[in-house]
């Protein structure tokens, strides 16, 4: 009998760092921090755009980009939590518009105290989440259809309530608070941006550091397994939709503050835009994979592309073309960065 290779009995498993070449290191970082890819894309494209037009990195332009990302960033945050459960929310924009019209309508048309009107708007937003959540959990309607239906319903309700009006809150009103600008040198930071970042922090914490978050991932990953280990998946999903609704309510407030009035005439692609931010940020549409930080980067990447192309003087139609190409390139680069040999 001849033996091929002899392994010293009981030799300890080799240390984790035994073979840690630079390539391995990078791979390990990427494994541990999956939103590193989008970050690289963000930084590189920002630098390129600054080379094309040096105003890009001006304080004024940076302030504006952050302001512009506040609302969509918030919507994408709620969307991300839902996508993590393998859901999708097509009614995100409609819910925000409805909440916004309720806030402004109660405060201005119906003359409620602003605090109450704001609270009522948040409650309405929360209720939109509750409706979506119940459709998904109770009536077993796939999230795509449930929220497509409520997209129609919330849009109609918002328009019926608004009755064709654009409402302008009084200057200095609490409703406009998220639009306040904090001057830091020549950089002006909008309060709503701080609100958005704070919410990313809170939701990121809840997802990464609490049992609730682990359950969100587990349900999105394999709902049957989550059910079998004893997670109340229906209650969990409901909590997710309600949370998302609340975030949309806050987005409504930020929207009023930023724009200075409440109207129903807001982009009809908010649902696609918020999903795009999440997917560019590395969140899987099949659920269970991704982090909110990625979504934030995703939203910023889209913003940087739009702003950068406009500043670079690219014409309308070509801008749309270039944006399409860039979005694809961003994700292709991210895929290439995170490619793990199999």
């Amino acid at each position, binding site marked *: 009998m001849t033996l091929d290779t002899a392994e010293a009995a009981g030799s300890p498993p080799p240390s984790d760092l035994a073979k840690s070449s630079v390539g391995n290191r990078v791979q390990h970082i990427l494994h541990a921090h999956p939103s590193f890819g989008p970050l690289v894309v963000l930084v590189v494209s920002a630098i390129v755009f600054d080379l094309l037009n040096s105003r890009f990195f001006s304080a004024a332009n940076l302030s504006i980009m952050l302001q512009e990302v506040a609302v969509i960033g918030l919507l994408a945050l709620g969307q991300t939590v839902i996508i993590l459960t393998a859901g999708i929310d097509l009614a995100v924009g409609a819910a925000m518009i409805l909440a916004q019209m309720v806030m402004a309508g109660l405060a201005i048309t119906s003359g409620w105290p602003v605090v109450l009107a704001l609270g009522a708007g948040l409650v309405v937003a929360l209720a939109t989440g509750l409706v979506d959540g119940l459709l998904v959990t109770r009536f077993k309607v796939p999230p795509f259809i449930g929220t497509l239906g409520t997209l129609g319903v919330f849009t109609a309700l918002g328009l019926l309530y608004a009755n064709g009006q654009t409402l302008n809150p009084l200057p200095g009103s609490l409703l406009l608070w998220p639009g306040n600008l904090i001057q830091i040198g020549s950089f002006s930071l909008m309060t709503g941006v701080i609100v958005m970042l704070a919410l990313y922090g809170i939701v990121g914490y809840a997802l990464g*550091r609490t049992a609730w978050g682990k359950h969100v*991932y587990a349900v999105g990953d394999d709902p049957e397994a989550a059910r079998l*280990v004893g997670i109340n998946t229906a209650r969990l999903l409901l909590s997710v939709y309600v949370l998302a609704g609340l975030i949309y309510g806050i987005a409504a407030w930020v929207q009023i503050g930023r724009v200075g009035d409440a109207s129903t005439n807001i982009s009809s692609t908010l649902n696609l835009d918020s999903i795009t931010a999440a997917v560019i940020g590395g969140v899987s549409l099949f659920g269970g994979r991704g982090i909110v930080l990625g979504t934030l980067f995703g939203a910023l990447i889209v913003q940087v592309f739009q702003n950068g192309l406009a500043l670079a003087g690219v014409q309308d139609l070509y801008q749309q073309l270039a944006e399409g190409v860039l979005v694809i390139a961003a994700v292709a680069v991210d895929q290439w960065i995170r490619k793990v040999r199999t």
Partner: protein
Amino acid sequence: MSATESGDSRTEPVLAARALTKSYGRVEALRGADFELYPGEILAVIGDNGAGKSSLIKCLSGASTPDSGQIFLDGEEVTFRTPQDAKEAGIETVYQTLAVAPALDIASNLYLGREIRKPGPLGRVLRHLDITRMREEAREHVKRLGIETLQDITQPVETLSGGQRQAVAVARAAAFGSKVVILDEPTAALGVRESAQVAAIIKQLRDHGLPIVLISHDMPSVFDLADRIHIQRLGRRAAVISPNTHTMEDAVAIMTGARAA
């Protein structure tokens, strides 16, 4: 259904079922299955592939609802609508499909649904998980099952080897069962040493008074461990035998229908 094997017939079963039926479309998985588990015993459940063993324990653990029949816990009739109900009643189950969240790491899976929070206000108010502690304990739990090849405790379970993954699922049940532990083929993917460890743990749990239901195709191990053996056949309980009075050949013969029990 008059008497059962072994002296346990005087005491009341911890967990019992009468005439469970369950069909899926045209397929009848259970056709009036009975079941009894007595305190402090290891009950093996054996049977051909597709005999309805997993279907039976799914009904017992709340994972599925029988079409008809009754389930009793400590003599009281119960209805488990969800696995959570059964879990709250103290029934811990390792499913054949393992029921793990593939993208989550080992510790998160081990503690899924019973996470440990940090001590102090961080845990109480902010509900911060004690991730370091869960990781450390997870490493211990898995080691205890003889798995020594684990290099990285932060690996998502989808990247684990078949046996490592099963070890995570078994460790979960072994660590947390409070009234009954049900194991559906817990050693199918495990190596020789690891299987032996699981056997040792099963015995240990029994010695602590916990009754155990063990589904397995590994006859030698069944005859080594079990106090009684429930033989499932064509969706029914064909017989209950004792490893003391019957041989493996008897068991296999009844199981396959070669003998009328």
